[in-house]
């Protein structure tokens, strides 16, 4: 005890480093979802009123510089845009194709769009401490039925999935930060299937199942419905197509359609 008092700095550094490393190892080994249950709920509740106030202030400030009617119109257009995107998705995936996918899913015992019925909307209340990662917290949690693994979307497209959840909060990891596989279809030609299985520097990489399939830069990819993501959600646009002759694979690099840093409102599929 006396030694600790005489060597405050060394003692603090040792204790703090041991604690931090311990938390880190525990958190990494549990996939970033451990230890933040009760503490996360309390801290989330503490910060949540400030975020709500900020949103009001933010709205007010923008109202000063723009006409209120414009703001209203903007909100309406956003809603319309979301509705139209839903319509586009339902039109691109015709009934017969959905039937085919459903039968394939049931034969493979996949759980996807069929199992998803409810949508919970939430606000982004905080981002991670970096500018390059896209991990954020939303103000909806287990009380609304959000669970670990729930798919998160925005008006633009696929955002990611919930990696940890508590009462009143959920941490969302974007598709470019997670290493999970995403099965895709090309929006212009729904016969072309592929898998996005890697991420690098904010982009997704993957391959088409048919190496002779014709895909080109600018093509939009949507989720196929196989796997954990429901069908028809926009993923991103192809920025590069290459052919790997060693593996005989046509690889694609995809830029996500969602601007993760500009996200304010998201929906969780539960």
């Amino acid at each position, binding site marked *: 005890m006396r030694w600790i008092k005489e060597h405050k700095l060394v003692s*603090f550094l040792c204790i703090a480093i041991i604690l931090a490393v311990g938390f880190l190892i525990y958190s990494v080994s549990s996939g970033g979802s*451990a230890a933040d249950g009760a*503490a996360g709920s309390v801290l989330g509740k503490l910060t949540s009123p400030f975020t709500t106030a900020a949103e009001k202030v933010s709205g007010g400030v923008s109202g000063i510089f723009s006409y209120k009617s414009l703001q209203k119109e903007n909100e309406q257009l956003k809603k319309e845009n979301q509705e139209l995107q839903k319509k586009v998705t339902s039109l691109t995936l015709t009934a017969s194709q959905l039937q085919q996918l459903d039968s394939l899913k049931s034969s493979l015992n996949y759980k996807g769009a069929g199992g998803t019925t409810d949508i919970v909307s939430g606000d982004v209340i*905080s981002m991670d401490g970096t*500018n*390059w990662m896209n991990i954020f917290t939303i103000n909806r949690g287990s009380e609304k039925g959000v669970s670990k693994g729930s798919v998160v979307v925005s008006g633009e497209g696929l955002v990611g999935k919930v990696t940890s959840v508590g009462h009143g909060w959920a941490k969302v990891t974007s598709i470019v930060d997670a*290493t999970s596989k995403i099965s895709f279809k090309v929006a212009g030609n729904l016969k072309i299937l592929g898998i996005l299985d890697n991420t690098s520097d904010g982009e997704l990489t993957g391959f088409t199942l048919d190496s002779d399939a014709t895909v080109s830069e600018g093509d939009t990819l949507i989720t196929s419905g196989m796997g954990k993501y429901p069908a028809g959600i926009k993923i991103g646009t192809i920025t590069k197509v290459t052919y790997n002759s060693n593996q005989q694979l046509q690889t694609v690099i995809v830029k996500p359609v969602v601007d993760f840093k*500009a996200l304010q409102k998201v929906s969780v599929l539960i």
Partner: protein
Amino acid sequence: MNRYWKGAIAFLAAFLLQPFLFSLVPGLGIVPDLILCLTAALTYVYDDNVGWMAMGAGFALATDIVSGPFIGIGMLSIIAVEVGILVFKKFFNVENLVNSAVLAILVTWVYQTVYWIIAAIAGSNYGYLYAMKTIIWQILFDAVIFMIIYFIMIRKVTPHRTDRYFG
């Protein structure tokens, strides 16, 4: 009121204001890291800095719990910054403005670099150059906040140093 209590209130305010700032400037994606700025400035300005370092580490841990990808990542990064500041103070004069400006820039760079190293070990797929490309504005924002806190605090600390009984 004891200055540690005042400091604790400042840290709490910074912790609560952080998401407020994020919501206030949506779309920008970059806001100053208030906890980092406060920890760095107070550790830099004061000689008895263990208390400030502990507060900084504690609030960094709280931030990790609320929004970090892994618990402890921000805490460990802020400890690295604190140690870096202690080393910097051994060689450079705290009251020199140029030194302080250089440190203001280094603080964010060290923090983000350590953060990136830990994230990379934990499995993050971001290259160092990509990560650093995005922190230029962050450095600028943090440096401004750091210098504001520095200017406020150094005026309170300097009279003690010029006291003939000081030290």
